[in-house]
């Protein structure tokens, strides 16, 4: 029980690394920085592996209970200072622990977060070798690891929220890592602000959960929800709580209304994009919804909303990804799209399928991003695919690993993406064929844009603009390629954990997760129906594989010979559609009109800011005007009163006599001039007069 008892060390190790970086990093050598930061994450990964291994044994012995380790209470007390009434009127006390929870769900996240994180740390030592702020970058990365692990291992919503905010902060810091670029700091601000909207939803949802359940511990909440499932079904409080939590998930996981920050987040360094904005952080929303599955299943409306939002996000982002030219933006929209898949899975009740897709997606999407980073590295910072081409010979390792990832994400069989995506599509079909149709279309688009990326980057004729760049193209160092290879390996094999029963597998993954989704599994997937639908399942499987092949074919036809100045097929077929897609459906512009107020219709600001402006105008002109008018009336009255006082009372009444007295005093002043000699003169004159009178009178 060594690792389980000291599970709190897992997040603490990167925290120590981060603290060292922030306090002493400036004075440390790059090698020392790498050793400390990568070492802490490697240690954390090893401890995570040990912890998960021990948990499987411990769980098998203890009925697959979650393992909970509470260190202390950091918010609220047992003595009842924060007492309140639950929604049903029973008393409850608010408290939040510094406690850690390990169950199958968090085990999966723990493993791939530390694993992928470790690989990306190693990759970063190569990628960032020539950048300034090396220690800062690794400090942020370690801080992110700490926050993410806190989020995953938290045993209650409040501590989870701490990690949630921590990863938000690290995301902000890392997107704005090149803070001297205006676009980077703008993107960082955008990410942070959009996340705030989701966070507000999370907090409110948390309050509802506490009001409903009387506790924020996951075990208590899950237990409460499952115990009272019958009474709580359809309870509006549950609907409200889950919808608000989903808003939080939308913010963090870039779902439809709040997805706008993620494409811009590509301003950060590529390892960051890979780690945070593809593999780990953006899946926190999925994790949170999966963690709250007991509540979500109690509200059909919420589930429907999650499913629809997920589906729409998937196809929406995929359609944008069709035409993007920036290699990282294509991947970013791909990420949004895949996250939509995951939420679609959660929404249709296939929690384990969603989680499985998270798991596989983490590997191949991280691999894609790191590969893209390697390409960018080779191209001396060039990110536009229109200026690439014919790189397959020059950077073979990158090319091969990326090809693996592309095949995985496109859903080619026996690679990881195939199993998870097919699972989701199958579950969607079972829920509603319309949602399946959307997912299918998305799969087609995914295959197309991914192979478009591959063709434009590796196979098509070279469109490199400058010879200098052309000469400079080289394979990345070992520290970068080794993680690529490792990730490629997992991109191929990760899916095998969830080999579906229909294909002769045993789906270990789903079994492993069963205790977590106990309520969902028995309701949504009655084993009785499985055989009846077997044919349909194979048909759908074939269709999705076919879609991948069609996407590849279309991409190959359009782009295999794309020379300089090639034309996009969509642009040729329907220019308005192309423009719309290229401009991302004008969503940012719309937000500018409606929310930020940066764009105006003529001179009138619209939306929220417009409302604020109008309110401000009303306040400053009508309300203040009334106030000022009252003031003006008072002041003019006072002015008149003052005038009256000054000229009539003081003037005629007081100063008049004084002026009169002063006028009369002028002759008298003649003798009191203040000049001594004048006095003497007057005296002499008096003497003359006196003597004259005395002598001659």
């Amino acid at each position, binding site marked *: 029980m060594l690792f389980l008892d000291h599970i709190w060390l897992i997040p603490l190790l990167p925290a120590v690394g981060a603290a060292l970086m922030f306090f002493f990093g400036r004075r440390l050598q790059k090698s020392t920085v790498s050793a400390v930061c990568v070492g802490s994450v490697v240690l954390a990964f090893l401890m995570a592996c040990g912890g998960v291994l021990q948990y499987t044994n411990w769980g098998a012995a203890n009925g697959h209970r979650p393992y909970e380790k509470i260190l202390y209470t950091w918010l609220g007390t047992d003595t009842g200072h924060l007492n309140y009434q639950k929604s049903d009127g029973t008393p409850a006390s608010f408290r939040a622990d510094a406690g850690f929870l390990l169950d199958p769900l968090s085990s999966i996240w723990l493993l791939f977060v530390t694993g992928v994180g470790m690989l990306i740390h190693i990759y970063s030592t190569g990628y960032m070798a020539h950048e300034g702020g090396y220690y800062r970058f690794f400090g942020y990365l370690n801080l992110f690891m700490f926050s993410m692990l806190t989020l995953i291992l938290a045993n209650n919503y409040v501590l989870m929220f701490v990690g949630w905010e921590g990863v938000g902060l690290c995301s902000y810091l890392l997107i704005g890592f090149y803070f001297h670029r205006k676009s980077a700091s703008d993107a960082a601000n955008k990410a942070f602000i959009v996340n705030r909207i989701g966070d507000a939803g999370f907090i409110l949802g948390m309050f509802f959960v506490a009001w409903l359940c009387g506790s924020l511990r996951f075990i208590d909440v899950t237990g409460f929800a499952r115990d009272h499932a019958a009474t709580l079904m359809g309870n509006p409080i549950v609907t409200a709580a889950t919808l608000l939590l989903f808003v939080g998930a939308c913010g963090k996981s870039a779902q439809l209304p709040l997805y706008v920050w993620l494409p811009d987040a590509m301003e950060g360094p590529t390892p960051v994009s890979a780690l945070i904005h593809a593999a780990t952080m953006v899946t926190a929303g999925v994790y949170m919804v999966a963690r709250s599955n007991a509540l979500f299943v109690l509200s059909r409306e919420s589930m429907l909303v999650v499913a629809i939002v997920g589906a729409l996000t998937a196809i929406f982002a995929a359609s944008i990804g069709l035409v993007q030219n920036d290699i990282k933006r294509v991947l970013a929209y791909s990420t949004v799209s895949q996250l939509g898949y995951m939420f679609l899975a959660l929404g249709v009740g296939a929690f384990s399928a969603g989680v499985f897709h998270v798991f596989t997606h983490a590997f191949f999407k991280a691999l894609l991003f790191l590969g893209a980073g390697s390409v960018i590295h080779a191209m001396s910072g060039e990110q536009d695919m229109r200026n690439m081409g014919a790189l397959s010979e020059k950077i073979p390792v990158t090319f091969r690993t990326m090809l693996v990832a592309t095949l995985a994400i496109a859903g080619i069989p026996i690679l990881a993406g195939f199993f998870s995506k097919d699972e989701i599509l199958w579950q969607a079909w079972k829920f509603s064929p319309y949602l399946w149709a959307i997912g299918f279309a998305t799969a087609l688009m995914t295959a197309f844009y991914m192979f478009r990326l591959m063709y434009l980057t590796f196979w098509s004729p070279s469109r490199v603009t400058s010879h200098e760049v052309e000469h400079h193209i080289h394979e990345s160092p070992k520290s970068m390629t080794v993680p690529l290879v490792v990730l490629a390996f997992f991109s191929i094999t990760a899916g095998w954990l969830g080999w579906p029963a229909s294909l002769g597998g045993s789906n270990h993954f789903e079994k492993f997760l069963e205790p977590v989704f106990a309520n969902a599994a028995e309701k949504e997937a009655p084993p009785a129906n499985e055989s009846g639908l077997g044919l349909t399942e194979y048909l759908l499987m074939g269709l999705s594989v076919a879609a991948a092949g069609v996407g590849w074919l279309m991409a190959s036809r359009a782009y295999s010979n794309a020379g300089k100045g090639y034309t996009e097929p969509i642009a040729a077929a329907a220019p308005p559609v192309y423009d719309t897609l290229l401009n991302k459906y004008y969503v940012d512009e719309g937000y500018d009109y409606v929310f930020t107020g940066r764009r105006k219709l003529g001179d009138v600001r619209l939306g929220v800011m417009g409302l604020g402006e109008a309110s401000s105008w009303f306040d400053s002109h009508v309300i203040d005007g009334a106030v000022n008018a009252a003031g003006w009336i008072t002041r003019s009255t006072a002015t008149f009163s003052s005038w009256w006082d000054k000229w009539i009372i003081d003037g005629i009444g007081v100063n008049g006599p004084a002026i009169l007295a002063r006028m009369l005093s002028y002759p008298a*002043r003649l003798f*009191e*001039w*203040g*000049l*001594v*000699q004048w006095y*003497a*003169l007057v005296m*002499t004159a008096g003497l003359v007069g006196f003597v004259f009178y005395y002598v001659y009178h």
Partner: protein
Amino acid sequence: MEAMLHITTLHYLVLGAALFLLGVIGVLTRRNVVIVLMSIELILNAVNLNLVAFSRYWQGMPGHLGGPGALHGQVFAIFVITDAAAEAAVGLGILIAFFRNKETVNVDEVNLLKW
């Protein structure tokens, strides 16, 4: 001519009057406080001259006011000199205080008395 050569009390009186007028002119017209004070000394000396001259006059006159012991004028002159000493001391003290405060010795720049 005879009257001019025979020096009488009147000669001293005329001399005293002339000095007195000079002193008065000095007091009334000069701006420099020091010279004004000196002019005052001139006036006092004119008076002293008159007093001593009258003392001399009364010494030669009969009666209880006159006679050999009629030195009252001289005693008065001594008192006047005493007074002049006191006046000079206080006046120059005022002058120094004044100069320290206003950096000037011009008497017509001292006109605070009118308020």
